[in-house]
């Protein structure tokens, strides 16, 4: 698993890129395989830190149970025109993307 010699292969970089929705060329993949590996190796020093019986911390504000009431916030709602104002491709009030073939 993770140790000081973490070295990712171009195949692993390609898989990660796919997960991250990034399309990379061969040269980028090669370069990233080196630089990502060197940083992962560096951060792998964490393995030597004793964290037995230590809880994880995901947030530091100490807050809990923060809710909003179930009320419509008209002030913040956007008009259709505002919602679409930055879209490159739109059609009849919809955002438009290249066809996604999932159904048939």
């Amino acid at each position, binding site marked *: 698993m993770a140790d000081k010699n973490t070295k990712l292969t171009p195949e692993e970089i390609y898989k990660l890129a796919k*997960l991250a*929705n990034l399309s990379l060329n061969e040269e980028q993949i090669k370069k990233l395989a080196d630089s990502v590996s060197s940083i992962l190796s560096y951060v792998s020093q964490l393995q030597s830190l004793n964290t037995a019986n230590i809880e994880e911390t*995901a*947030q530091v*504000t100490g*807050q*809990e*149970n*923060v*809710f*909003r*009431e*179930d*009320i*419509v*916030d*008209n002030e*913040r*709602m*956007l*008009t*259709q025109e505002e*919602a*679409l104002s930055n879209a490159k*491709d739109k*059609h*009849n*009030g*919809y*955002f*438009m*993307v*290249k*066809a*996604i073939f*999932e*159904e*048939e």
Partner: protein
Amino acid sequence: MEIHVELKTVSKMFCGCKNDPFGADKPNIYTCPVCLGLPGALPVPNRKAVEWAVLLGLALNCEIPLFSKFDRKNYFYPDLPKGYQISQYDQPFAVRGFLDITVGNEKKRIGITRVHLEEDTGKLMHATVDDPTSPSGLRGASKKVSLIDFNRSGVPLVEIVTEADIRSSEEARIFLKKLHQIIRYLEISDADMEKGSMRLEPNISVQKIQSRLNRDKIQKLPPYKVEVKNINSFSFAKKAIDFETDRHIAILETGKYPQQETRGWDEKKGVTFSQRSKEEAQDYRYFPEPDIPPIRWSKSQISNFKALIPELPDTRIARFIKEYGLSEYDATVLTEDKKTADYFEKAVKSKTIPAKTVANWIINKKADISKLSPEGLVNLIQAKTQKLPMSEKDLEEVINKVLAVNSKAVVDYKAGKESAIMFLLGQVMRQSHGRADATTTRKILENKLK
């Protein structure tokens, strides 16, 4: 089985946009920076949606962990504006529950693994539009596109996951109907499958039964499962499961396993079709949502939630049988939805008409209860029935009158002439125009003449 239910809060899960995707007359009119995933926007959870998720968990006999949190489920799809869905991963609002169903004459317990809260995605539509940029330069050239509407994006969505306890398509159908009924009783969702506010995803795998006796005690699940999506009715769920089990059996008999995948249901053809292979299993990279503080309940808060749960169908059936003397069949039919059951109880409250008669009228749909008030129904029954049963009070009045005018018969009876009571009974029947119940009247007379 996985079931998704859209909650009918007035606003969305993490923002104040109107939650009415089905009622919207135009696309992208109920959005804001949050549910459109604009840069810099932050989610704030809807208190009511959270409470309703907990209520549903309690109604499904779940434990409510005192600590819970939201997580991010990361994946890319054009209808998912943030590139992640705020959901719950390892600490959902409700865990380890069950729902008891009746299959044939047998009671069966279906385990509920978890109930968690998340947000719905936008809606994708597939269309062909004019393509002025077509390289062919032809006029009228067109291209296939997908169109996205984010009115549904961020609508609160509850996911219910069952244990692998369901053994047949019929069990699945019964379970789903009951679950649907409970959701409607809680009044937290329309659970309208045609509108997509309740969505069913059976996960199906088939295994040879080693011994009939151990039918329900499967040690190990088969090494594959097939998930079916796009099912919008209980009967389609049943059909899709039947279709799949037949398909799996055919494959298993050749000595192979069916491929683990997600399939869609084609209701026109009545078949399932391959959608997405799960060979390359999605890696959702869940991690705690840093934008939303966690949730911690006190024990008293949870008991307060319990107090908010209305009487659920099973309890109500039992009470109707006991309290109103209804048959199990009548009680079951009347409690099918909360509205009818409430209607029935309002109608019997006046006690002018026996519960059985009211039940009969409602069940056999002699009157349109959607148009008639419960009081109206009572009046209607009274008017239309010659032999309208009398209230006890009215009956007593008639009896007292009859006794007062026929003192001779009273004296005769008290002197031992038992046939005199038949005369008095006849008088009561006449006075009440036949509405008095003979047995009841006789009982009252006997008591009064003691």
